[in-house]
Each structure stands twice: as C-alpha cells, then as structure tokens.
C-alpha cells in the first residue's frame, strides 16, 4: 500500500538561543496541510523540554494554533535566569 502525502504548507522556521545547535538562521520547512504549531515543533526532532516559548508571526503562540502557508515561527528555549 502506498500513502500519498498531500503537498502541505511552507513555514519559515527560526531557532533561538541554545536551539541554534540544531540549525542557525532560518529554514523553510514543509508541513502537511492543517498542521498546528505543535505538529511543526514535534516534526523538528528537538529534544523533549527544549522549547519554552513560541512566536507565530511575531506574537506569543501556543502549540494548538493552526499554521497557514507562509507563516513564520520562531522557537526559543524556556525562560531562565539572567
């Protein structure tokens, strides 16, 4: 049996702080249609507990928010001390 994955959406993803160990700068990442922010985060293969703050198009976002073509997502580690 062959599964056909429909062409999804292209999201611009950036990582910040310690997450830059995965990749620095920004990358265009394709995700299936109807993906949420959480789906995107899970697809990146980061280690558990490493993402603390998510920005979607410059605003604070939750994992459950729906993504749309062309969205920009920026991921930060959890907020620590200074």
């Amino acid at each position, binding site marked *: 049996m062959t599964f056909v994955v429909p062409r999804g959406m292209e999201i611009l993803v950036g990582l910040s702080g310690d997450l830059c160990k995965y990749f620095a700068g920004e990358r265009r990442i394709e995700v299936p249609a109807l993906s949420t922010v959480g789906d995107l985060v899970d697809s990146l293969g980061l280690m*558990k*507990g490493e993402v603390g703050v998510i920005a979607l198009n410059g605003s604070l976002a939750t994992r459950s928010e729906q993504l749309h073509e062309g969205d920009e997502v920026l991921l930060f580690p*959890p907020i620590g001390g200074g």
Partner: protein
Amino acid sequence: MPCGYTGRVLRVNLGTSATTVEEPGEEFYRTYFGGSSLIGYYLIKEVAPGVDPLGPENKLILACGVVTGVPVSGSGRNAIGAKSPLTGAFGESDVGGFWGAELKRAGYDAVIVEGQADRPVYLWVRDGEVQVRDASHLWGTTTGDCQDMIRSELGESAVQLSLIGPGGENLVRYACILNGTRHAAGRTGLGAVMGSKRLKAIAVRGTRPVQLADPQGMRAKAQWVAGVYMQTSRGLHDNGTAGLVARLALSGGLPVRNFRDGSFEGAAKISGEAMTQTILVGRTTCYSCPIRCKRVVEASEPYAIDPLYGGPQYESVAALGSNCGIDDLVAVAKANELCNAYGIDTISTGSCIAFAMECFEAGLLTKQETGGLELTFGNASAMLEMVELIARRRGLGELLSEGVMRAAEQIGSGAERFAMHVKGQELPMHEPRLKQGLGLGYAVSPTGAEHVLNIQDTLYAQDGGPFARPKALGILKPLAPSDLGPDKVRLFMYLTYWESLFNCLAMCQMQPYDVEQVVEIVNSATGWNTTVWELMKVGERALNLGRVFNSREGFTVTDDCLPVRFFASFPSGPLAGVAVDQDQLRAALRTYYGMMGWDKETGLPTVEKLQELGIAWAANELPEYSVPKQ
C-alpha cells in the same frame, strides 16, 4: 595538607593594620564549605546586632569556596558579605572573574576585613604575604584607572583586584565591589561597606595552584565541559544572558517602565541578538570557563563606550533599558560602562532611575528636583545623567543613592507605591506575575529581592530539558509558572538549597553539570566522600544562617512581602488579568516556613532545625520569643 581549600583565613584590622591568619580546620570547612555559609558563620559570631553597616563594627568578608580556583568550568567565583547598608539585613553578593582563584593561589580561602582605616588604603596579598598600603592617590579613581595604577606600582600585570569605584567611596547604598572592571558583586551595597572602611582594593597575586585530591578526575570534568558546551550552552555563548530579552518580551514578562508593563515595543533593539549584531566586539569569561557568556562591547556614537568595562548582561539591559522605557542599546551599554567604572550596581541604579521616572511622571518629582532634567520614561540622556549624579551623590542623585525605599520615604505623597523593593533591596529584572514561585523567592530571600537564590518557574513547566535538575532532586511533576501551591513551594525549597550550595562552593549556576557531576567535582577537589544529601544540607544551612542573622536585626514575617504592584494585573498583553494573589502568597509563605522547619507564626528557624543542621550554636542568637517556653 588540605585539598580544594587552603585551610587559611586572613583577618585584617584596618584600624590597627594588624593581620592574622586563622586555620579553622577540616570540620569547619566540611560544615560550611566556604562562600555564603562561611560569611554567615562569621557575621553571626562577630557582628553584634544593631551595628551601623557603615561603621567600624561591621565586617566585610570576601570568601572563596572549596572549589573556587580548581581547574574546572564554573569555579571562578567568590562570595562577598557584610551587614548590608541597603537592607540592614544579611548582605551577600557573588561574583565571577579571576580574583577568587588568585586568592586561593595566594594561600587564602577568605579575607575578613575589620575596623576602619583613618586614610584610604589597599591590601596587597602576594603568596601569603600581606601589606596594608596607602591608597590616598587612588581615592576618587574609576575602577579601570585604579586597576592600571595598582598594577603599575606593584610592577605585576597579572595582579587581580577586588575593588571599588567612586560609588563605594561616596557610600552609595547599592555600590558594588568589582573583580577587575567587568565582574560585579553588584547586590546589597557591599561597595559602600568597603568604602566606609576606606579600603579601595584588595590586590592579589598567587603562584601556588590549588591542591587537588583527584587531578585526573578534575581534568576529565574540564574536558567534558569543553567538549559539550556548544551543545548545552550555545545561547549563553552566542548572545550572553541578554538572549533572554526577546522571549521575555514575547511572554509579557519583561520588566518595563518600573514593572508597570510586561511587553516592550523596543525589545528587539536591546536584545542579546541585537547586541551581537551591532556593538559586540568580544566574548570574555571567568577562570577556567569555556562558555564565554560575558560580553565586550564598543561604540563611538552617540556615546563612546570603552570595552575595558565589558558589556551589559541581561539584568543590566533590562534595568537600564526596558525598565526605564529605553530602547537605545548604545545608551544602555554606556550606562553599564559608567556603573562598572563608578562601582554601582546596575540593577539598583536602573531601578532607582525607573522609580524616579515614575515619580516624575506622577508629579511627585519636578524639574526643580531633577535639576531641569525631563526625567520621563524613554529619555536615554536623562538616564545617563542620573547615573553620573547617583555615583557622585549630586542633585537628585543624592536622594536616589539611598535606594528606592528611603527615597520614597523622603518624597512621601504615596511614592512608596512606585518603590519596587523587598527589605530595601531593589528588584532584579524578573516578573513575579509571570513566575509566581520567584515572587515567593523575592519575599523570603535573606538579602531582600534576589534572583540568584531563586527559581525561574518557566524552566520547570514541562518535562525534559531544564526539568532534569529538580527531577534528580525528587521533584517529579512539572508545574505551571502560575502555580503557587505546596508542590511549587517544595520545588522552590529544594532548588534554592541547591543554589545556596553554589554560593557556598562558590560556583557558577550556569554550568551544564547535573547534580552528580557537582558531587564528583567537590570530591575531586577535596577528597571527601560527599553526596547530594550532604550538599543539599550545606545549602540549607547557609539559608538558615541568613535567616538567623536577620532575626537578630529585627526582621520578621511582615518583611517577607512583595511590592503591592504585583497584586494588580497588567491591563493588556500576554499576561493581561494575571496577578499575584495575596492570600495565595500568604499561604505559600506559611507552607514554606513549615517545610523549612521554621515556626509558622514567627518564621524563625526552630531550635531543632538548627540542631539538625549541626549549627545548634546559632539557636542562642535567635530572639527570645522563638525559643519554646519551658
């Protein structure tokens, strides 16, 4: 021959110029470990309750811990303590750099400074030898000039200095002591204590490496950090602690305009990333640390910034930037340079200016008091002018150099509602409405509002990542940052034991070690067979010593509080509608006292708790009412 520590404490009386050396013995070191706990021990034993913090009876103690100066990342720290002139309570601040390691190499674990000199002096400690030298020609100099002059007259460029600037000389109540020109023991006004003793600097040079019980084990640990730090600590290396600005602003928890707001329209301009892309010219570090989280910045316009003084870290960026409504990164960096050159705490300085800005906007201060300055939020040149005035105690700076608590009392007319402090110490740059356990920490810290002996709730809201640390200590369930129930209190208590331990060791908290690795480092240094259990007790002991010291000074549960601003919510932004619930905080405090083994009514350590910690002697210092009636 002891390992890890030298076994020698230097005592200098500046009134008589007498110097003596004490050797407290292994049992003392294994009980207190150094740093914060050593300071607590000597302050309680030797500084009588009620003394003037700026008088000769107060003692200034600079203390390494049992791992200071061992060749492993994070060991470049020392603690400094005295009765605080800012709070009247237990004063302590911890600092990195190279001075602590140098003091160990010079043969001492700590220096206790007593009395008061009749003229400016500095100490010169070289491989165990001590001189009290004239510093009249150094009085009034910036930290940078003083460092150059002392190194030049001693003919040794490798001399490390712990020193004050004009702020300490002028007894600014939040003057700091710097290790060199870039590492500040910023909090609780210890620079003013040093200034009151007319002690400009302690110059140190040592050539004898710290003895290690297990050099091979220590080397393995150092090599491990060198191999992994770009995986574990990449953000700190790349953008320093100011990398926090962007995510805090997004979350609505960045201190803005004297904690009035949580989001800042100019956050991107003062972020760690912006610093990296614009004025950063170098990354420096502390003894033996490969992470290099310290910034070096340089600019020529609109303000010339001398890279000698490093660059602003997160607390300084927020205190002198967003909390003053300022989005001009070069101005913030200039203010940071001035604070380091003059030796005043960036956090309290920024907080005092933000307080004055709010008073000005509310009409409680006018141009008459500000000397014509338009002291509004966002006015960068006015902020910089105020830094100068505070360090020199001129104009409005005279009032603000006393700290927000005393300034508000002077101004009156309700100014205290703008005074963001606990026990007289200005708040660090972390928002209790975002992190409610941190608010509890502000309330109970022995030094007043404090971020080092505290938790960042946001680190422990999900499993994995930074939650590994509390999990290793037996906290199994992540908790929401807004939680302030008994589980959060327990998490707070365990983690602050651990952090308190770091102030005793004295070690940097921002290292990638897990708890077992810290145990191994202590054992490699000392040859002891310590465990996580014993290390937790060291941290707990230090916290209890601070509490005992404060009880003698008259502090009670009513001083364990928060500024009223946090009991009201933000009108908008990601934290709209969120406040600290006063009743919940009160309940959390009682739970904390109970969990700590303290009396739930008086908040004082019980005799049994002090006995359990092996410091029964401290029970004699408690106010009478805490001792159970016979």
